[in-house]
């Protein structure tokens, strides 16, 4: 059952990710990206981490993509014109992608000779909180929030040029 769900949603994630880059209409691209993020969240849930799955949808699919769509709608972006597909370019792109895939595969095999199995781990909400909010990761966690705050202040400063 889990395997079927994994292949369905994994496939959906990959297919919609292809649509994101293949689609010429930015609105459809954005919606395909939302679909990718949602299917990824199902994969997270299948891996036994419903908390991460929910966060994935809330933060990425819910909050960030709404802002994307908001900007797209405000700017009223229309469909980009089709450009003729140039054989040489496409071929080079595909070749490069294959090379990257090969390097990653080889790297994975070299670094981890034993068959890839998932170590049993506790991914419950409580455990997540314990890891994030104990001194082990607390400072990193807080530093990240300062970083986001800096970005926020920067955005406000850019939007409001005259103080």
């Amino acid at each position, binding site marked *: 059952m889990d395997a079927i769900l994994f292949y369905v949603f994994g496939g959906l994630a990959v297919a919609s990710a292809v649509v994101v880059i293949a689609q010429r209409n930015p609105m459809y691209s954005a919606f395909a990206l*939302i679909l990718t993020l949602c299917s990824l969240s199902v994969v997270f849930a299948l891996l036994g981490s*419903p908390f991460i799955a929910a966060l994935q949808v809330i933060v990425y699919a819910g909050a960030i993509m709404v802002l994307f769509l908001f900007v797209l709608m405000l700017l009223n972006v229309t469909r980009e014109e089709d450009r003729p597909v140039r054989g040489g370019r496409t071929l080079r792109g595909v070749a490069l992608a294959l090379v990257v895939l090969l390097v990653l595969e080889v790297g994975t095999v070299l670094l981890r000779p034993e068959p890839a199995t998932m170590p049993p781990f506790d991914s419950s909400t409580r455990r997540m909180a314990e890891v994030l909010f104990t001194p082990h990761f607390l400072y990193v966690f807080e530093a990240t929030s300062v970083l986001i705050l800096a970005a926020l202040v920067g955005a406000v400063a850019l939007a409001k040029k005259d103080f």
Partner: protein
Amino acid sequence: MTPLLEELVIAIVKIALVVGALLGLFSLMTWIERRALAFMQFRLGPNRTGPIGILQPIADGIKLFFKEEVMPAAAHKWAFLAAPVLAVTTALLAVAVVPYGPPFTLLGRRLQIQIADVDVGVLFIFAIAALGVYSVVLAGWAANNKFTLLGGLRSSAQMFSYELALGLSWVGVIMLAGSFRITDIVDAQAGMARGWFFGWNAFVQFPACLVYFVAATAEVARIPFDLPEGETELVAGFHTEYSSMRFALMQMAEYINMITVAVLGTSLFLGGWHSGIPGVPSDGLFGFVWWGLKVSSILFVFIWLRGTLPRFRYDQLMRFGWKVLIPVTAVWILITATGVALASR
């Protein structure tokens, strides 16, 4: 029957029951709302079809079914067709994790009318609510009409802003119960104040409760927050171009969301199916009665508000959401967290 098959059968029966009941309740709600609003305005409302007009929803359904489906020539076809489907899908996904009434025993099995008792139930609902925005955005954009586009923009901004306050209002409740599971939150409330009703989160978490109901009203775009479909300036907002059954689907999604909000509010803040008075039974059929009373009073308040309040101005809406609701909940979370930390000492 094998255990797996048995589980599957139970799940399917539950889904059929909940979805069927919700669809019935949706049509009933349209009639109740029109009648109640009419009485508030010294009118009679729909009272001709059947006894006291109760068959009006069926007549409306048949009428909508036979109407012509119109699609604007310049519409983005697939997006236009997908939007109502997406609206109903997200609405029906959210109803899957809320409990309908107390657990009961049937044929030696402990059952509860709840399709999935998810570990992160509250977060799941939040995630689905976040996705609910897209049907509105998609509908507004796909029709290729400036009124619908403006309606879509308005509602995405509104839902986005009030979602924050909505989510934050749950934090205190979750901290008190120590769980994201909705049934745990219901039971945690029954355990406070020796089972008296002032142990419910509506009293213990009064500010959060207030914020929840205000933000939820905005989230389902009911008066006084119905700017997305403000008739006078935007015709009907994002669903201006929808007609016939597609309009009915949009309407259905809206009502189902409203029912979900009421059911969730009952579970998170009003003690779910518990009677709230020690000694008064709240298991089995009694639980359903208490639960039903609470849900229907929340739904009635929604109608009452519609008959009472005028609409917000857009800038007032934004200011209220960002500068009042969110700071209030943030401070309240701090207070609750301090209390929980001190109590656990």
